[in-house]
């Protein structure tokens, strides 16, 4: 399974790519694999204000419903709207085309609480036990 080095991860299986003051957010390869075929997404609107750890949307596969949790706090400045019409992109390319939202971070210090790839892998191993 693939966990790119330039990303940071949450224990709820979101990833976060920092670009200046912005964080691009999606779900991890592990999350898309565990969900199975993604068939439906609910994403926030531009301008919505997110608080770290709170739900910002929903991802549904054929069998399962899963909440999306904000890895950082801030205002939503961009939403990958085409994804809603092509949710399978989340399975096919979770880290690039499958990004979900961009957040203007209100407290970049929160990034320190996220996991690096090694720590996320370790967390997955512990979770599997």
């Amino acid at each position, binding site marked *: 399974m693939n966990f790119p080095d330039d990303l940071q991860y949450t224990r709820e299986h979101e990833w976060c790519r920092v670009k200046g003051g912005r964080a691009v957010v999606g779900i991890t390869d592990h999350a898309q694999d565990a969900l*199975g075929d993604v*068939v*439906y997404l*609910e994403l926030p609107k531009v301008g919505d204000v997110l608080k770290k750890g709170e739900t910002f949307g*929903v991802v*549904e596969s*054929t*069998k399962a419903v899963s909440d999306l949790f904000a890895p950082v706090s801030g205002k939503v400045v961009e939403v990958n709207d085409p994804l809603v019409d092509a949710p399978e992109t989340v399975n096919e390319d979770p880290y690039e085309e499958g990004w979900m939202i961009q957040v203007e971070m209100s407290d970049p210090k929160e990034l320190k609480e996220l996991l690096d790839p090694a720590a996320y892998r370790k967390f997955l191993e512990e979770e599997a036990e």
Partner: protein
Amino acid sequence: MAQRTPLYDVHVKAGARIVEFAGWEMPVQYTGILDEHEAVRRRAGLFDVSHMGEVVFRGPKALESLQRLFTNDLSKCADGQAMYGCLCRDTGGIVDDVVVYRRSATDLLVCVNAANRQKDFDWLHGHAAGADVQNESDAWAQLALQGPAAAAVVQKLTAVRLTSVGTYRFTTGEVAGVPCIVARTGYTGEDGFELFCPPGRAPALWGSLLEAGAAERVVPAGLGARDSLRLEMAYRLYGSDMDDETTPLEAGLGWVVKLDKGGFVGREALARQKEAGVPRKLVGFTLTDPGIPRHGYRVLRDGQPVGLVTSGTRSPSLEIAVGLAYVPAPLAAEGSTFAVEIRGRAAAARVVKTPFYSKPKPASPGAAP
């Protein structure tokens, strides 16, 4: 501790994702639910349904005795024919929905849902007058090959002439050298076969079917696809769409309740309910707003909860959200509208005809240039 079918190791080796279902560790998917669903609709998929149970009625009173416990009319079921129906309590509540395979008037096999193996056996054994009733669930494995290519694939492996086995008919014979009940039944809406065989021979039969179906690109299929396939057909799932508290009339299974066949357990209650009219009915609906309905979501009318969704998914074949729900009888007519509460939001829904999915009509020969 969950039980395993004789094919458990085969599933794990094939890379299946295993989940617990009705007390069984079962494959939910191999490559993906959508892939497997499509394979069954277009080619064929192979399912392990060994978790299903088998209860056998034998003896001179076997037919008479099962007839008193079954809502459909077994006098209309020929030897070598299968019949779907319900087992009901005195109240009319459904103990289980089952398929009866009538081998003869003195030998009938009842195929029951996995979760109800013990419950059904206890019920049938406790209420069968004069018949020898055996729980043979552990003596049978069951493989289901379903899809338009199923017959051609099975035919490669058997001397049984499958063209002579019609829908909901069965016979016995060897498939790939394994003695089987070869039944043209299933739970997908496609043509196909359910093969009942000795558990020890199931892995060999499984391998032979996949090998014989390689050219047709037959794939193993899991419970996930089984569920989306059955729901596209609006086939009910016991435990989700009905239980001991719902009657066949409420569940839309009135077509398997034969009130005029003579006495059977539940008949009086069902006759009374039919006379009075059912208070609620299981209907098929589609969402006209975004979202996916799920088991347990509430049905709203004018903002008030009036019913419950019992099954729902995004139909892989139709690419729309479909579901089954209990609604008050006045809302059950085709075209009626209500809302489904999805995470606090009211998503508009409309009652539609079922099955949701029907096979595309083949082009008539000679019609095209």
